[in-house]
């Protein structure tokens, strides 16, 4: 899954989706993850990256990531999966 093109994430955790005009606030871990999604990393790569920087294990990050991506999808920030 990819982040919709044009979605802008600021360092202060402000997310703007020009396609819908909606804006969001995201916490630092969330902002970090969005950046990594934009870099096309896989879930397990994201898990590892986050675990390197934060006090958490990669497996727990992946659980949270699953939930977080669902939310991004709900908010139409993630491009739908091609069927």
């Amino acid at each position, binding site marked *: 899954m990819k982040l919709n093109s044009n979605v802008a994430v600021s360092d202060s*955790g402000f*997310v703007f989706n020009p396609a819908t005009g*909606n*804006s*969001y*606030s*995201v*916490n*630092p*871990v*969330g902002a*970090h*993850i969005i950046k990594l999604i934009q870099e096309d990393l896989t879930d397990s790569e994201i898990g590892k990256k*986050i675990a*390197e*920087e*934060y*006090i*958490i294990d990669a497996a727990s*990050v992946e659980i*949270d*990531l699953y*939930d*977080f991506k*669902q*939310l*991004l999808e*709900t*908010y139409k*920030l993630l491009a739908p999966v091609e069927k």
Partner: protein
Amino acid sequence: MSDKKTYERPVIVPLNTGLMNKFGTRTEYQPVIDIDGNPVKDLLAKYGSPLFVLSERKIRENVQSAKRIFETRYPKVQFAWSYKTNYINAVCNVFHQEGAWGEVVSRFEYDKAIKNGVPADKILFNGPDKSREDLELAVKGNSPIHIDHLDELYLLTEIATEQNVKPRVAIRVNMDTGIYPMWDRFGFNYENGQAWNAINKIIATDKLNLIGLHCHIGTFMLSAEAYGVAASKLAELAISIKKHHGKSITYIDLGGGFASTNTLKGSYGIGADAIPSMSQYAESITTALLNAGFDNDDLPWLYLETGRALIDDAGFLLGTVLSNKRLSDGRRATILDFGLNLMFTSFWYDHKISPAQPFGSHTEDCVLYGPLCMNIDIVRQHITLPPLNPGDHVVAHHMGAYNITQSMQFISLRPAIVMIDMDGKPHIIRKKEMLSTLEKDEVMPEYLDTFNL
């Protein structure tokens, strides 16, 4: 030490959607790391999760403050602890140590008060359900019996005649105090003359000693003025009794019902901001009594059966996050290890819930569910909280009134109750239930003892 950063679950929250929250609930959710100096984490590790915690300091402060507020306005004030509000014996005894008598509404509460050492003549016996045996016991103890209905009046008159004693009684009066709904299912009505008729009957038959007039106009009363109306009406009855029968009434009992700092569902504003203060209730009641026209040497005692307002904010329910889910509308659902089974009052209150550990500045709208397998097990339908992880702890506030006495062992056993004393030391005041607690009174018919599967 690693230089890794503290992790917080990723969250994203839409901005400016729907109405702005004008109450700025963010500030409601400061973490509550300890209760009277005891870390939440340690209490749960030691006594198990969930856990009821009561602050003895807070209870005493509440009673002392309420007494001061009333006693500086009126010379004769007596509080009676409403057992049903919280009848754990240790709790009752804190109230009794503070000078409160007992107020009970059933035989087992009566027996509890006696066992706790309350003199029988300082137990006010309320409620519509008193059997002949209960009444006989109360008569023997010279307890003030608050008569609820005519059948009780006849039964008590019969007992008095048989035993050739004159029981001390009050009648419960219901009335229109300008609030809705009117609690007219208990006692005798003031406006239609029922109360006055009952009074005349009692005095004419001369079998019972009418010493008091009682009312309990409702519960979680948001109007202090209603108490003034109630006090005036009871005072008027007392003065009419004096005038027509030459008899002085010893006390006027205004029952309970002062609001606690909880937030009623659907109300605007948060608890403390929306309810009258104890001083407002006191002012309204004492002004009415002082202006009613009693002779100075004939002022009746003012009895109060205040429950929730004296204990709600001294009680906490500590618990643990079991898991998180995402609902179909994107909202987070957090499942806690306590629910309706331990907080029956969440039917009518939006309980304040705080995380018990520090958190960042991001919050999410979520639903808090309890652990029961039923759809109605909702702790909070809408709440804004920082992301919570399984194993994190939460503190539910204002749990001191009714939650313990109405808790059920449905699906899960009831937790321990701890009271933190004046020096900050925790004491178990009721042990955690075990399977054996539950099965203690079960009986297995012999023919059902075995089976083959």
